[in-house]
């Protein structure tokens, strides 16, 4: 039979529903609507299914044997190992993972991908026009200072921007997505704000363009990445022949460059390597060197030569372009240490770069240091406690009113010897305490059970003093007063007090310090 396997039928003029067979499940077909104007990416033409629940994305170029095998594995073996097992549901949120592979009669290969979740399309978009309403929320909208500048003509509506805390949650999700890929031995190879959709409103993120995944040693990567995210060593060797052994390719460690670049961008709305230093009088060469061989952190602690020059930055990028006003240290001590590791020690030494799990943990721990800003007009709404005795919001300058309890967490190193964990919890009115604060064996990650996500108590400023209300801790003890604190009672939070949160193995002690007295 020489009949084409691509069936074509018409329902409305100019709109054609086509059908294409799966190559993993014989007999299965996918329909898609071809109106002659597919959505176009760098490599694929993308068509919606008739009910828009999925898209079919066809490669414009012929795919070779390797690439087809790789894609087949992604939609079968890797799909199963990621999603068809315990905890798999959680990851479905983090990726837009292809579910099947198709091939037309003339040999065009395509992927079937669930349509991006609707919260990744702008409800409102621009503040002053309809321009991007309904368009995808690709990351750059939120990674650039311009689009959040209150006077910029094409700024985003405030309702789209979320607050500073939203971006910590978003970065946690991105880090988790990368962590899981790496745990499976995969590398994304093209992490960028184009390939991660983010939604500050629902605080979600999803990694797209999964089809470029690299299995080290097995399959060669397709792309070197997207400008702004390509690791320095990859740029510095990209002029070499593809098979030159000294040429550096995208792999796990280059993801570990792209990830912190993204985190830095989402928290500080500027690029960590784009500063004022000129490395060549040829603009294109300068770009290549500044992001490659000569890359230098704009906030390098000792070499200040790449700091942004304030007389050269666009006014729309302020105040974020001003590293003196908003230094990266406003992201707190845990992230500062990791940024140093990624952009100072590890910038040209890929193996020194922190892994995705470290980013996830540092981001989460940092949220424990955050305080809501008391200024209702503050654009960021949250800030990280700066460890000073009279803290102020770095964004709007509003000082914190009243005392601030700071809780330092300790663990039992050996019987009767307690050691600090370099983990601190800042208390604010109506803040909750969770299992992961109480017991060091409860790790705050995507594997938490619903039960573990229920707070065990909360802090509140009540009758002019700070108290902790115990809701679920069965062995809470005030060590200073040597007194049990039963469930449904409260304990005063005062300077110097020690509380034992749990007598179970792994239970922690917290030591209270009052700041801003």
């Amino acid at each position, binding site marked *: 039979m020489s009949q084409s396997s691509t069936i074509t039928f018409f329902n409305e003029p100019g709109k054609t529903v086509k059908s294409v067979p799966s190559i993993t499940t014989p007999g299965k077909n996918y329909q898609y609507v071809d109106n002659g104007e597919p959505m176009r990416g760098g490599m694929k033409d993308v068509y919606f299914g008739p009910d828009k629940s999925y898209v079919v994305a066809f490669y414009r170029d012929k795919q070779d044997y390797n690439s087809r095998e790789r894609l087949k594995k992604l939609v079968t073996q890797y799909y199963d190992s990621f999603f068809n097992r315990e905890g798999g549901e959680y990851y479905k949120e983090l990726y837009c993972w292809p579910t099947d592979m198709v091939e037309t009669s003339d040999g065009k290969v395509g992927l079937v991908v669930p349509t991006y979740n609707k919260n990744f399309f702008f409800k409102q978009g621009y503040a002053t026009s309809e321009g*991007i309403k309904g368009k995808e929320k690709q990351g750059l909208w939120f990674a650039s200072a311009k689009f959040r500048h209150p006077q910029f003509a094409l700024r985003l509506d405030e309702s789209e921007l979320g607050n500073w805390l939203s971006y910590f949650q978003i970065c946690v999700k991105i880090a988790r997505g990368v962590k899981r890929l790496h745990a499976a031995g995969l590398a994304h190879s093209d992490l960028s704000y184009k390939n991660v959709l983010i939604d500050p409103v629902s605080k979600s993120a999803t990694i797209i363009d999964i089809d470029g995944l690299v299995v080290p040693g097995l399959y060669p990567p397709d792309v*070197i*990445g*997207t400008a702004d995210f390509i690791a320095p060593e990859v740029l510095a060797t990209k002029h070499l022949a*593809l098979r030159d052994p000294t040429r550096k390719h995208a792999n796990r460690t280059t993801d570990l460059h792209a990830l912190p670049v993204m985190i830095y961008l989402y928290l500080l709305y500027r690029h960590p390597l784009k500063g004022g230093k*000129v490395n*060549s009088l040829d603009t294109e060469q300068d*770009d290549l060197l500044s992001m490659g061989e000569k890359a230098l952190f704009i906030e390098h602690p000792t070499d200040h030569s790449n700091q942004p020059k304030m007389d050269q930055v666009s006014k729309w990028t302020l105040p974020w372009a001003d590293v003196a006003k908003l230094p990266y240290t406003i992201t707190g001590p845990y992230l500062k240490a990791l940024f140093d590791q990624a952009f100072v020690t590890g910038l040209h030494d890929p193996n020194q770069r922190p892994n995705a799990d470290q980013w996830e943990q540092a981001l989460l721990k940092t949220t424990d240091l955050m305080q809501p800003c008391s200024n209702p007009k503050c654009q960021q709404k949250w800030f990280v406690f700066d460890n000073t005795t009279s803290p102020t919001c770095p964004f709007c300058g509003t000082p914190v009113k009243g005392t601030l309890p700071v809780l330092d967490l300790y663990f039992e190193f050996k019987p009767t010897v307690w050691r600090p964990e370099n983990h601190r919890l800042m208390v604010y009115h109506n803040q909750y305490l969770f299992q992961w604060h109480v017991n060091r064996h409860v790790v705050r990650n995507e594997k938490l059970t619903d039960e573990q996500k229920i707070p065990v108590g909360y802090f509140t400023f009540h009758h002019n003093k700070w108290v902790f209300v115990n809701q679920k801790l069965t062995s809470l003890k005030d060590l200073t007063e040597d007194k049990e604190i039963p469930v449904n009672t409260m304990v005063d939070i005062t300077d110097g007090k020690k509380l034992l949160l749990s007598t179970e193995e792994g239970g922690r002690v917290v030591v209270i310090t009052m700041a801003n007295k």
Partner: protein
Amino acid sequence: MTGEPIEAVKNGVQVMISSLRQNPQAIETAFISIITFDSEAKQVVPLTDLASFQMVDIRATGTTSLGEALKLVSTCIDNEVTKTTAEQKGDWKPLVFIMTDGIPTDDWQIGLEEFRKRKTAFTVACAAGSAADSALLKLITENVVSLDTADSQSIAKFFTWVSASIGVSSTKVEDGGQEVTGMGELPPPPAELNIVT
């Protein structure tokens, strides 16, 4: 250019601007200038960022001063595209799109000589309709696109293509080429356009 074609060009520019204004990469990086040429060449829009760009009336009647236009684009590049200095990073090389529906009526070679001294990331010339001479445009740039008819549909397609070529895409490994900064290679043209090779 008169009548339908010039209206289509105006429309094309407008559609292009509004499509670029939906693209954050373009808003971050692209500046646009428009030069028209008939009996003389005029810069009707100076190099302007996308957010502040305001459309003006485009007119082009009678003769085709392509040479003047090439000269003017050269001086505009000199004056408006920031060069990198030891103190300050400059702009990327410009993309130049030339669109004409006729045969040059001035001494275009002198203009071309000037233009050749300027570096562009790429130059695309578009011969709109049968009266344009794509062989001549080939002397200006390798990238010549010819529209069989200068009607609104094909002109619109050309501008869609222009918008698509101003944007960031992932850099393929095989490229190994020079571009890293986003103004990469041209996307494949829509089927309706003929690339003259």
